[in-house]
């Protein structure tokens, strides 16, 4: 994201002009735009014109509109942000108060105006405009009969394909159907990899599975790649890494990375894959991904809960209480909470964040699109590791997520 212009006054009102440069920026924008904000951007509008003779024609015109935001939609499949609202600025084509939907586009600037820019939103802009961190990964998480093909960017884990097939099991004296089912399954995964992994961007592809499925698959894939002359796979062979996982479900992405057990060479890998595993540059490449740091933070929280339950707390009320007591050392909070409709609710979360920062605590904002963020979301969206124990009296009547 590029910031073109910023004008925010001392009361934190004002506007910022930004240019999204990659799909990830749409996610940032999605987290910035709130109901009630004003958004200005160029857009295409269908306009009816009536000529002197009375004939009506419909034209598409490009114009700049400014709307007051009413609904916000994010489509993870295409990374499209769609914002709907009423026009609030005189325009030659569009009446005041008429509805319009702005689709934010890559490389087209938009201006966002807020009555009150909070610290979380401002931090988000800084993060979005920080050019350093960029390690895009792809991951194939699989087990026999089930595979997830995901893309992992700093702030998003996007499921690109889910393959689920029934593979006939081995039966006494008859394994042919099993083998056939397995190759068919692998073929489908290869198709998904070819279709969804952009090797220009992706630095490495993790292939993870329990048992030997990953090895078998990788072997099959590269055999096929040579046979079919899929240059894109053979050329990028060095980008593939085999990882151990406990299951083929998407959420086991989490334990992959926390453990990151590279499979031992004794089980018969392809040579080139061994080279990848030995490549020391891979570890740091993965280490700075936001997904990984989030996983670690959540792990720390659970460790604390295990060892000293009174020094770990979750749920808005409990965390608020801890903030009041200046007890929060690390705050884990899902960005989902700041997208709350209700302004009061949003303010409540912002207050928690600001409170923690004031007292020298650390704030980790999780992306709700990552698996760890998903889990934090299930855990009420906010959790904290405390400096000193606080006993929660169990009166809690918090509502369900």
């Amino acid at each position, binding site marked *: 994201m590029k910031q073109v212009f910023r004008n925010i006054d001392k009361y934190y009102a004002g506007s910022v002009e930004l240019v999204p440069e990659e799909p990830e920026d749409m996610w940032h924008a999605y987290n910035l735009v709130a109901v009630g904000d004003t958004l200005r951007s160029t857009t295409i509008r269908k306009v009816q014109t009536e000529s002197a003779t009375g004939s009506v024609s419909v034209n598409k015109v490009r114009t700049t509109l400014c709307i007051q935001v*009413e609904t916000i939609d994010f489509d*993870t499949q295409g990374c499209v942000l769609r914002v709907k609202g009423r026009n609030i600025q005189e325009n030659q084509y569009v009446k005041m108060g008429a509805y319009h939907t702005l689709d934010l586009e890559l490389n087209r600037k938009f201006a966002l105006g807020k009555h009150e820019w909070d610290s979380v939103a401002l931090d988000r802009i800084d993060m979005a405009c920080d050019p350093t961190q960029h390690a895009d990964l792809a991951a194939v998480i699989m087990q026999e009969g089930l595979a997830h093909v995901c893309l992992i960017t700093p702030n998003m884990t996007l499921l690109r394909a889910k393959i689920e097939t029934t593979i006939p*099991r081995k039966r006494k004296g008859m394994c042919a159907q099993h083998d056939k089912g397995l190759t068919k399954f692998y073929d489908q995964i290869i198709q998904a990899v070819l279709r969804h992994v952009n090797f220009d961007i992706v630095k490495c592809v993790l292939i993870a599975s329990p*048992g*030997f499925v990953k090895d078998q698959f990788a072997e099959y894939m590269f055999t096929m790649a040579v046979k079919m002359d899929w240059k894109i796979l053979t050329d990028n062979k060095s980008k593939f890494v085999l990882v151990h996982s*406990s299951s083929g479900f998407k959420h086991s992405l989490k334990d992959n990375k926390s453990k990151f057990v590279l499979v031992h060479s004794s089980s018969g890998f392809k040579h080139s894959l061994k080279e990848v595993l030995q490549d020391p540059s891979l570890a740091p490449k993965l280490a700075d991904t936001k997904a990984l740091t989030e996983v670690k933070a959540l792990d720390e929280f*659970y460790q604390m809960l295990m060892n000293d339950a009174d020094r770990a707390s979750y749920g808005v009320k409990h965390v608020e209480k801890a903030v009041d007591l200046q007890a929060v050392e690390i705050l884990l909070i899902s960005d989902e909470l700041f997208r709350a409709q209700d302004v009061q609710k949003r303010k409540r979360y912002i207050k928690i964040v600001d409170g923690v920062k004031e007292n020298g605590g650390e704030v980790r904002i999780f992306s709700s699109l990552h698996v760890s963020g998903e889990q934090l979301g299930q*855990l009420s969206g906010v959790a904290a590791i405390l400096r000193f124990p606080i006993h929660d009296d169990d009166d809690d009547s918090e509502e369900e997520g």
Partner: protein
Amino acid sequence: MKHIKRSCNIMNEIIPFDFTTPSPDDIVRSKQKAAFTRTAFATAPPTVILKVPPKGRQSSKSPEKTINSNDQATNSQLNSDKSESLQKSQTLSNNVKTSLNIDSDKGRIVASNSEDSNLRTGKSDLKTDSGVLTVKSDSKVDTLKLESKTDSFLTPKKDPSLGAIPRSASKAKLLLDPAKMKEEYDKRLAEKDQLNMVVIGHVDAGKSTLMGHLLYQLGEINQRIMHKYEQESKKLGKGSFAFAWVLDETEEERARGVTMDIAQSRFETPKKVITLLDAPGHKDFIPNMITGTAQADVAILVVNATKGEFETGFELGGQTREHAILARSLGVTQLIVAVNKMDTIDWLETRYNDITKKLGQFLKQVGYKENDISFIPCSGLSGVNLTGRIPEPKLESWYKGSTLEEQIDKFKVVTRSIDKPFRLCVGDIFKGMGSGFSVTGRIVTGSVQPGDRLLVLPSGDSVAVKGLAINDVSYPCAFAGDHVTVTITGMDMNNIHVGSMLCDPTSPLKSATRIKAKIVLFNVEIPITKGFMVVFHYQSITEPAVIKRLNSQLNKSTGEVIKNKPKCLVKNMSAVVELEFDRPICLELYKDYKDLGRFMLRYSGHTIAAGLVEEVLKSKSKTDEGVSSSG
């Protein structure tokens, strides 16, 4: 596609979807279905609204259900249509026998569901059938079954309702009536006892070798094949695995010398017919081991007596431990411990005693009764003390007990629920010869015979049973406890999955997206909180699930509530929790069907808890909130 939506007014008032009227999708689907179903009608009948009294209670307010049919008013017309098409289908197919069956069986069911019997009196088939559909007051099932209904109406040969009203007995004679079934079952009882036995234990304990060799000694494997295995395994440099090859049949398993999935086989002892399930020991394949164990009555736990190896399997994180606990939690009560590879420790009595003492203590702790555990020293590789064919003076000098075969013969008989509604959990699906396709699995309750109509869940298809085979031998009927291959017709093979259920159409399983369950935590390393994402293992299903709520922590021995809404659960605690699934899972409550009410929870490659289903809180649709938990 994941879609995140936010808006100022829409979110606040979610308009619940009205499931009582057909959605555009439903209509399109039913039309499509009609188009693709071979039917006696020239054109698909119009979609109409049929009124059905709700939930089996007499009530004037009835929810409206769509059934792709002629107008309800023209009942007689409908019936004649039906019988006409029925005749056609009879001439068209050789499936005559399917149309009518279990008359008296149905009668029995009607009687037991007296609540809805008012629906069934002398009205049209269709209506009667719909009445049955609502009995469960489980709208998920309703919707599913409405689809199946549609289907079955269009192809009348599939209509399960036809059996509901006694008609010409001539057609029924092709099927056995319950009395005959009972007779058939008694005949079965008079023969050898049937038992399902799973073989479990730490990786490389020698399970497959032991069982392969036992099968060989019992004459189940012919010498020519055994010789071939010896030659071929030697060629791969895996000569010691020759006996394991009897059960490890895939290329991958043989190449790696590791069992990956359950292998099924069968042998007989003087008093028993054993269905053998050889489980993988590697911890990555525990999901498969769970699937196998869920189908077993009894187990053999194989431990490796070799110095240091027994210890590895037995220490924390070893599968001797984990498998023993899993088997107990999955309902296995009788256990033989085969202390294997005794040849590697020179048949030392002291070592044997040491192992049996340690294991005995542990097994008791885990909940096995002392009388139900036995220990056998043996060697799977050399074949000593399997059937008593190979003498070993070093063992005989101190051991006077049974051989493995003798001990297996001593397993106690288990009782089967053959009188409950039919249920089979699909473990495998494959294309056989001839029409339709085959599924395999263990019949959990009830009985089945060719010609029966069954309901497939969760797809909702109605299928006809074409044939039954047990160990590749075809049978006229099969009962609870049998591992059967069922050949079915009437649905697309792609709509049935491992974990799907076949059941009695008049008494389907519960469908759930959220359940309340009692769980017992194992020795877990991290605390369990709400929001925990786990893998739910149930019969042959593995599905992701989220622990949505920690309701209460229980006293382990008394079951009393110690604390409501605990902050987290740690190792060895017992608790009531709520679990939510992404898509509906068909299951039963523990109190109704013990075997179908048990499940396991795993996280990150570890088994963290065993659970019992206490209540179904939500099935798929929102309209039927708070589904009754009654059986």
